[in-house]
């Protein structure tokens, strides 16, 4: 055997080792790619994180101590921590990104929307009056802004409805009442704009997703209570990946479902527990440009990143 043959064999050995490793990694897909975060009140830690959104290459997370903190997508603390002016009555429970790349904070218990720059400077606010009349709000749970600049706000509790605001904050339309029928809601936890231009609504206590056009016209709904694929238990957040798949995080079933926009379940991930790859009361998720899913694993005080 010549020396060059031996060298070749050695290289082959290394390559095959690399191949086997990656194959094993592929086989162990059920565990998360990255698991990060721990319980704590110091900057960079959190206590029961409850909502998240991604702006650029940073993920913003709000927790039960009302702190909004920014991290890199790998979980390194980015040095930004701020809170809403007052949180004695309750903490913000929804985060969103507007089309200018600013942070929308649903100051749920103060019935208003606050918009912050990515560094945590408050830029503007809408609402602030509690009530059921048009322009007044109950418990604000989520907000999205579409490409034309309209804001869509969801509420629950006092009012179970969605309000559409123009970019100046004037009410364009509202729709929805408490109930179980089509177009009725019980606890809207989250909104998402689909690639098809429709609004997808996580109707948590009806255990379903409802789809509307942007003026409130009911399009379809899917799901229902249960544990099987396609059914939901307390869907608490939803988002689309760049290829147009819908992801729904279910608090009750402690899992993420990947669905078509029509509601056909494709895959699911997660089970109850506290090991990596297991979820305890997940409240939210966020999807980055690469289609990686960041799951807010609330009762485990951490974030798990997966890619389907």
């Amino acid at each position, binding site marked *: 055997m010549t020396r060059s043959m031996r060298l070749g*064999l050695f290289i082959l050995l290394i390559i095959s080792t690399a191949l086997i490793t990656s194959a094993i990694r592929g086989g162990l897909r059920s565990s998360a790619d990255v698991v990060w975060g721990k319980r704590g009140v110091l900057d960079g830690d959190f206590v029961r994180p409850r909502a998240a959104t991604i702006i650029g290459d940073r993920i913003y997370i709000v927790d039960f101590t009302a702190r909004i903190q920014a991290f890199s997508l790998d979980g390194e603390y980015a040095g930004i921590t701020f809170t809403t002016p007052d949180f004695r009555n309750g903490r913000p429970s929804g985060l969103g990104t507007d089309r200018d790349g600013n942070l929308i904070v649903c100051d749920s*218990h103060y019935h208003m929307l606050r918009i912050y720059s990515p560094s945590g400077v408050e830029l503007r606010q809408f609402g602030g009056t*509690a009530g059921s009349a048009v322009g007044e709000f109950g*418990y604000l749970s989520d907000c999205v802004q579409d490409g034309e600049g309209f804001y869509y706000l969801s509420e629950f509790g006092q009012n179970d409805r969605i309000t559409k605001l123009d970019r100046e904050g004037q009410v364009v339309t509202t729709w929805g009442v408490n109930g179980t029928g089509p177009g009725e809601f019980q*606890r809207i936890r989250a909104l998402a704009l689909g690639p098809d231009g429709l609004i997808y609504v996580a109707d948590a206590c009806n255990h379903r997703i409802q789809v509307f056009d942007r003026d409130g016209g009911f399009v379809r709904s899917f799901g229902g209570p249960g544990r099987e694929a396609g059914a939901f238990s*307390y869907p608490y957040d939803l988002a689309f990946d760049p290829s147009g798949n819908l992801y729904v995080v279910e608090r009750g079933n402690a899992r993420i479902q990947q669905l078509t926009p029509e509601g056909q379940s494709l895959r699911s991930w997660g089970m109850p527990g506290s090991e990596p790859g297991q979820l*305890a009361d997940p409240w939210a998720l966020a999807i980055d440009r690469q289609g990686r899913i960041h799951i807010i694993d609330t009762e485990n005080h951490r974030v798990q990143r997966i890619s389907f």
Partner: protein
Amino acid sequence: MASMSDFLASHWLGAVLLLLSVMVMVFLRRDRSAALMCSSSIAAFALGGFFLTGKTISLDQVYNFGSVLMGFSVGCLVVQVGTLILGRIWSWQLAFGFSLIGLFAMGAWTEADLGAQIVEGCRLIRSIQFTQPIWLLLLGLIPFVIALARRSLSGLGRHRKWVAIGIRSSIVALLVLALSEPRINRLSENVSVIFLLDRSQSIPQEVDHEANLVDQIDSRWQRTREFVRNAVLLRGQVHERDRAGVILFGKRPKLALPPASVRDKFDIDDRMAGPIDGQYTDIAAALKLALASFPEGVGKRVVLVSDGNENRGSALDQAALAQQNGAEIDVVSVAPGKVTDEEVLVQSVESPPVTTTGSRLPLRVLLRNTSKSRVVRGLLELVRIGLTEDGSEKIEQVAIEQDQPQVLEAERGKPARILLQPGLNSLRYRDIPPKPGETSFSYRATFTPISSGLPSEDGRLTDVKMGLPNDRIANNRATSAVVLRGQRRVLFIEESVGGRSPHAHLIRTLLRAEIKVSAISPARLPAEPGDFSLFLTNFDCIVLANVPAEYFSRDQMEAIRTSVHDQGTGLIMIGGPDSFGPGGYQNTPIEEALPVECEIKSPLAAGKGGLVLIMHASEMADGNHWQKVIARLAIERLSAPDMVGVMQYGFGVGAAGVSWVIPFQTVGEDKSRLLAKIDRMDPQDMPDFDPFLTAAADTLANPDHNLSVKHCIVISDGDPQYGAAGQAATAKMAANSITCTTVGVATHGQAESTKMKGIAEATKDGRGNPGSYYEPKDPSQLPSIYIKESRRISQSFIYDKPFLPRHLIVGGMTEGIPKQLPALRGFVRTTYKESPLAQFRIEGPPIANDIRFPILASWQYGLGKAIAFTSDARTQPAENITGWDADWVESDLYKKFWEQSVNWALRPVEAGRMTLASEYREGRIRVTLQARDERDQPVNNLELDAKITVPRALRPGEPIPEITFKRKGPGLYEAEFESEEAGTYFVTVQGQRISGAEPNGALFDTARTGVTIPYSPEFADLDSNLPLLKQLADLTGGRYFTDDPESLTQLAQSAELFRNAPKTSRAYQSFWYWLIFAAGILFLFDVGVRRIAVEWIELRELGRDFWNRLRSTPEVQSSLTLEQLQRRKMEIDDKLERERAVRRFESSSPINEPAPPIADALPIARPVAPPQHRTTPATSETPEDMMSRLKKARDRAEHKRDQSSEPDRPT
């Protein structure tokens, strides 16, 4: 030289191995290469130990150099194996080289440790002792075993036979050794040091009084902590395995840090031990705890950091015990020689024990100024504490006598300004006490220092300093003995409703009967147990009229109990929905004093209640904590037959998230299991109420539970959804008489409150009353809400239908009350106490004839009398309010009944025929009693029954101090008892005349006195008790140190405290059970060796074949011709046959055996076939072959056994 010997001491194994490698080279000349390999391997290991032990290398982190080398060599070997598998390339030289590196690294890793372990092992073996050495004689059996085995195992072949014999002999030896009970006798070289830190208040603090309040820390305590920390952490490498612990002590010792071999952290904090009562010092108890906390088999040393001022227990006695136990006491004396000067103590308030009406009462206050030269200016206040008509405390200033040199300024009604000379100062007062028979009273003196200075000749002060920095406030106040008089006063405790008394009619009736009644709401009672006891002495009977137990603290209840038991106060509990069982008096001191038990023992009587609690995580601060508090309270209030369930939202427990923390179940007698579950509860944020309400409705409505009261409580912030399913559930609740109470905690707004109110109002009980909605603004309101709510369940105690009570015993307190009583409209079910003292006077309607309920019961409890009236007294004709006793109010018996009952319960009149005087001296209270009859003649034939009330509530099971009077002279009796606690002691004496030998039953008189110990002796000590500390050290052979900063630092660094303990303790460790275990394992091997034969030749051939295939050395194989191979096969066959012939279980009949493996392994068809296509029949057949042979052998054995047992069978 020393370093060389040190080196050899730790690397002796390396040296020995190096020597061995040289010897191998020298003596193994025959096989040069084998010798070289062997000796170089040994040398590599030894050299690794020599040169690399403890060496590190810093790459990205600091690594052990040995580990890096090891990793390298293992990695290289793995790569080599890889190349072998893939490329059939192998180099023995390289492999040997890498292995040498590996051995070198291994030496670095383990050589020194291995050496140390071997030494340790040898020491251990040397220290083995046999408890029963006689059994060792049985070792003589081994030769017999060998002889026997040689014969019986001769069929096994030479090697296996000797292995089997060896194993058998070992088993016998191990069993014999185990029988002789060997144990390791280790001389312990380790020391356990427990620091006892005195936290009593006599330890002078070092506080910078000039600094801000926040910065005022006690630098002495800081220094002590620092000292202990350094002493432990700087004890050095040699003492690394020594242990250290900490006990903090005051009145009681607390183990803050149990002895452990700490390395990096040893911080002491007061919080570790919980609150410490610094009012007393009990060094003895601390020593006792330390002795109990030492681990077994180590040297014991106590380091006592104290001023030695003990005022409880005897440290010397404990030190003697410590000495017997081989424990040493080192002493660090705190502030030796420091005298607490510049301190003022109010030593006592002296008042004459007997007061004569109208005369001015001479009083004296004694103060001690401890300073040797400085005079102290300050305010002295003496007040008389009495009682106003409505039962509240009345404080009046007593005027000081002006013509005293110390008095600078005395204004009426204000504290006097005085100047205290060094030493003892006596100040006189005069007071006109209130008329006897009106009220009891006591005197309290308080001194407040203003400034101190040195007196100069011109009468002015020089070097004036404001305040007294070292003064201890605790000893600036003293109270006089209490003057007590019976006044036939009744304390009527009730809760007013809307500012009005709910028992106004009864109170008016009693007042008409000339009984002094002070009605008071429980909130206005003194909260401090001491003050409360003092307050109670003003009354001769306590009436609890429909007041729930939660209004009293446990200490207050205990004060009421002792007041009845020890001071003869009467106790009457009047019923109502908040009394007895429903009022929560189960297992309280008050229940103990009552003639009835508040719990209903029979489940038949109770009528089961069912309660479901629904818990939602609260965003309120401490909300979850309060939820637990509430859940605990609710469960504690339920009675045994009731049922309870607790739900919370939990993740991962089904789609709806409904998780039963406590599944719906009967509460039972033992609630601790349920309470433990509550402690583990962790409710989460609930999205919707619906599944919970549905589950609660379904559970409570279940007819199988047979519930008479059904209730559900929801605690939430109102956030969850209340949808159609929830509304259906509340409708179901209403239909099934289930009430649901909702508690909105930190709701977010009106909408949530409305929602929760809606839930409560949608439910209805049997009478159409809805559930309640509460919105507490403060978490501390939650418990009372829950108590009220859980009382809904305990309504099963209440019987609220009219009935005719049966009057069982007429006479005594019910004298003149007719046998036929008017109807009552309800009562509270209780259980009658089985006691000969208890009298069951009036009875309510029974259940099934044998479960009876008292309406009126009475008994004598200690010196006092107690009455339980389980119906109520809430009827008020004037206000048109009807209670259960409406028909009684209208009849004539009402006034008579209550007057007689209260009079029966009242403390006997103090006629003044017996007078008590008491004094406190040196830890003992002496009580003197003078008894004179109506003609002022001394009475000598008295039987005296006396009871003491101590200042604090006794712990359960703690003995009550006893007091016995002895006659000292005509009509003069004396008794003495020990008193250590600060506070007021009450002594109550009842006297009966003895006619003949027996008391004649007639009460001669009662008398009471109180004596107050102003403050704990802790504050009387002014300097350290050095002699005691030195004695403690001397007695146990310890050393004595002082706590000045410099010597503390030195002491901490010297590791002196961890020096070897005087009497090195021995730790005996028996290990016979391990020997038995080993024998058991060997027994398995013994069987294995005999049953399983390993074909060494086959294995060798297999190995060779495997290696050849790995290397696929075609040269060898191609050189084999078919004939050669066949010849070889024949040879091996022969060899195998010979081997098998000697095998024990081999059958003589021919067995259809497969061909030897080597035959199939031959590359018959394709001698140079590519290796990856080669099959390996040999490896797959060998185990099968062996297994099948074993199986056959077993079958044959079974067959034989069957045959042999055949004739025994019955035919």
